[in-house]
């Protein structure tokens, strides 16, 4: 096969056995691979009623067909499971080199089932698959685990070629805020999956391989990639903004439009002096780092100076600056960088953790909860308390236990569920949905919870790359949201990163896909596959008990206008847009896909 390998590794941790299976080409034609393939297998094999932390839940690591072939930004490995935080499907997009290495190891997919008796590490090294006891790694941070594992390999040259994806102490403690960290990159949008991995007693997966991948038409493929590199270089957003500062360049733009939330989504005025790109340049010595085959290189590395973490750290991205910084009232980049580092080391999701902290801070500010009750002085802007809380919750001792259950549980236990700013139990990514209507609708309706990377409409709404749209206007946004959600589903399934859409059109990817896979897809064919994947995810979530009541934003965004700043007076019109969105999707007024929609997409059996 071209692009795809066609092999799947099924590991049963209860029995300690593994099996190599062939993948049916028909599934690949229908769902492409990656996220689509993972969701298909997951929804076929796992009951929607499964308890996320029980051995019956499965954890699927799946790389798309373009991953590892050298296709531009082909690096994504998706992790599909049922999240312990949202109770819905979870699909983390793991970047870095793990996904490509998995393909070189000879697998498109790893399915992890059951539960090991004690801590284990799954190692795949040049066709030798082993489940090793991992007691000495248990309790260690992600970077310690990686360093120790590589030292224990005994061969420094093989260690250099090995890539790990694993959990930190947060995942071991089954915190709903935990996610999986890969190659010391943060995995994106995956709160709750770390706990699933922890519940299986699986500390990490290490891969190294040496198999070849095949492409259908190598000379055409090379030509297409040359053109795409030129296109990326001629677009200023990808060639300058992204490669210079990573996603942090969005901070200034979002602030201008009132999208950057402050103090748990209440304010919009803040000086950018301390957190803008200028400050970023002076606070950190930036070094670019790329995921596999990415010419942009938006990840910035640096040294974080702190006695506890004298090591190599990651410069905060937009997500970290927004969720762990401004939304908690913190505007000190060094503290934000540290908080981001702690999240990576402990295996916490920065968005979910930041949302939980902001909720706690507002509860304390409103005196619903006293600082004595939480034994930590979490006030807006108190960065020391924030760092302490992040370190504490992964240990799950005493009072930290309450924080570690996530923002929703915390707000409910204080009888103020309205102060939790999230959808489906997951905190909102730091974009104020009142000032960016399309993204607000996406946050409400996204199958995975409110995360921008499953439908980054701000590429058109805010950056005006393909279309000039006004973020405050609701006109035409349901169609935009649907288009971006389907596009992202396709790109995740191919294994591509969706950030380069800032410099490329979706159509640019089609010659690359076809020359690599030997297929003859047109844009419409791929969009139909995207729609099929979105509907499949939707039917799983509905069967898991979610309803259209979960497709809404917290009350604050609909009733309280933005108090100040550029977006003053805006409210979200999500409830007005939602019926049109359901209609465009071919769903009934309760958000359930109509039988004719499902049969048109070839999903009859999921009705």
């Amino acid at each position, binding site marked *: 096969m071209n692009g795809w390998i066609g092999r799947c590794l099924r590991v049963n941790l209860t029995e300690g056995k593994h099996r190599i299976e062939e993948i049916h080409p028909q599934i690949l034609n229908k769902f492409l691979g990656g996220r689509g393939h993972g969701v298909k297998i997951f929804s076929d094999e796992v009951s929607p009623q499964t308890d996320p932390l029980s051995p019956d839940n499965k954890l699927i690591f799946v790389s798309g067909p373009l991953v590892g072939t050298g296709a531009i930004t082909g690096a994504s490995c998706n992790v599909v499971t049922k999240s312990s935080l949202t109770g819905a499907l979870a699909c983390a997009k793991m970047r870095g080199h793990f996904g490509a290495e998995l393909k070189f190891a000879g697998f498109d997919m790893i399915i992890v089932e059951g539960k090991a008796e004690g801590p284990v590490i799954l190692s795949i090294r040049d066709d030798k698959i082993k489940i090793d006891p991992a007691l000495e790694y248990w309790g260690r941070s992600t970077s310690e685990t990686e360093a120790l594992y590589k030292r224990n390999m005994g061969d420094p040259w093989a260690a250099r070629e090995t890539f790990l994806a694993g959990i930190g102490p947060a995942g071991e403690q089954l915190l709903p805020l935990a996610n999986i960290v890969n190659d010391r990159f943060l995995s994106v949008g995956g709160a709750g999956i770390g706990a699933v991995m922890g519940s299986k007693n699986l500390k990490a997966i290490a891969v190294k391989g040496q198999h070849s991948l095949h492409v259908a038409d190598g000379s055409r493929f090379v030509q297409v990639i040359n053109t795409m590199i030129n296109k990326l270089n001629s677009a200023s957003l990808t060639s300058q903004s992204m490669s210079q500062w990573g996603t942090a360049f969005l901070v200034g733009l979002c602030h201008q439009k009132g999208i950057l939330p402050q103090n748990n989504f209440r304010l919009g005025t803040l000086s950018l002096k301390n957190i803008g790109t200028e400050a970023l340049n002076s606070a950190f010595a930036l070094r670019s780092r790329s995921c596999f085959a990415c010419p942009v*290189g938006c990840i910035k590395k640096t040294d974080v100076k702190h006695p506890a973490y004298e090591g190599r750290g990651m410069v905060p991205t937009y997500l970290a600056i927004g969720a762990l910084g401004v939304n908690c009232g913190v505007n000190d980049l060094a503290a934000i960088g540290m908080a981001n580092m702690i999240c990576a080391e402990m295996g916490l999701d920065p968005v979910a953790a930041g949302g939980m902290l902001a909720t706690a801070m507002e509860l304390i500010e409103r005196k619903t909860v006293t600082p004595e009750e939480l034994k930590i002085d979490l006030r807006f802007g108190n960065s020391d308390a924030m760092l302490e809380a992040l370190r504490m919750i992964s240990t799950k001792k005493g009072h930290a236990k309450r924080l570690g259950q996530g923002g929703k549980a915390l707000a409910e236990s204080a009888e103020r569920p309205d102060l939790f700013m999230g959808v489906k139990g997951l905190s909102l990514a730091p974009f104020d949905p009142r000032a960016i209507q399309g993204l607000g609708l996406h946050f409400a309706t996204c199958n995975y919870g409110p995360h921008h990377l499953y439908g980054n409409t701000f590429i058109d709404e805010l950056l005006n790359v393909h279309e000039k749209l006004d973020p405050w206007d609701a006109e035409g946004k349901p169609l935009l949201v649907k288009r971006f959600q389907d596009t992202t589903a396709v790109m995740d399934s191919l294994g591509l990163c969706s950030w380069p859409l800032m410099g490329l059109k979706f159509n640019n990817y089609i010659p690359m896909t076809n020359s690599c896979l030997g297929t003859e897809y047109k844009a419409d064919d791929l969009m139909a596959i995207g729609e099929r994947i979105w509907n499949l995810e939707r039917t799983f979530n509905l069967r898991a008990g979610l309803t259209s009541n979960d497709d809404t934003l917290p009350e604050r965004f609909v009733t309280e206008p933005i108090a100040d700043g550029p977006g003053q007076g805006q409210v979200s019109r999500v409830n007005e847009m939602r019926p049109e969105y359901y209609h465009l999707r071919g769903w009934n007024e309760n958000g359930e896909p109509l039988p004719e929609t499902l049969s048109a997409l070839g999903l009859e059996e999921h009705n």
Partner: protein
Amino acid sequence: MARIRIDHAKCTGCRHCETACSLNHVPNTVNPRRARIRVMRDGTRYYPVIAGPFVDAACTSKLFIETGDHAYDQCALCRASCPEKPYFIEAETGIPLKCDFCGIPPAPSCVRWCNSGALELVEE
């Protein structure tokens, strides 16, 4: 004479050069273990290394080179394939690999795909 200039400070570790090389030398095939260029990693630094000679004995001495603020492990920079560092032995065939500059005149495919500026073809 044409040379490839390698700038470690610019390399982002994307390994696109490895895929370019193997696509160029083995038709329709991508495999970093069949490429004549590999990117070594050390902390936040990356060292692209281009395949040189094959030797059947390892050096008896180990070197560290210090240049101002940074110490380099000579083995990581070394272009030779040796028993100590079994790189540039083609996976699946076992043949030792050596960079051929992608023909005459040199048109290295790794340089063409390197977008960070770490690899550059210079005339001297």
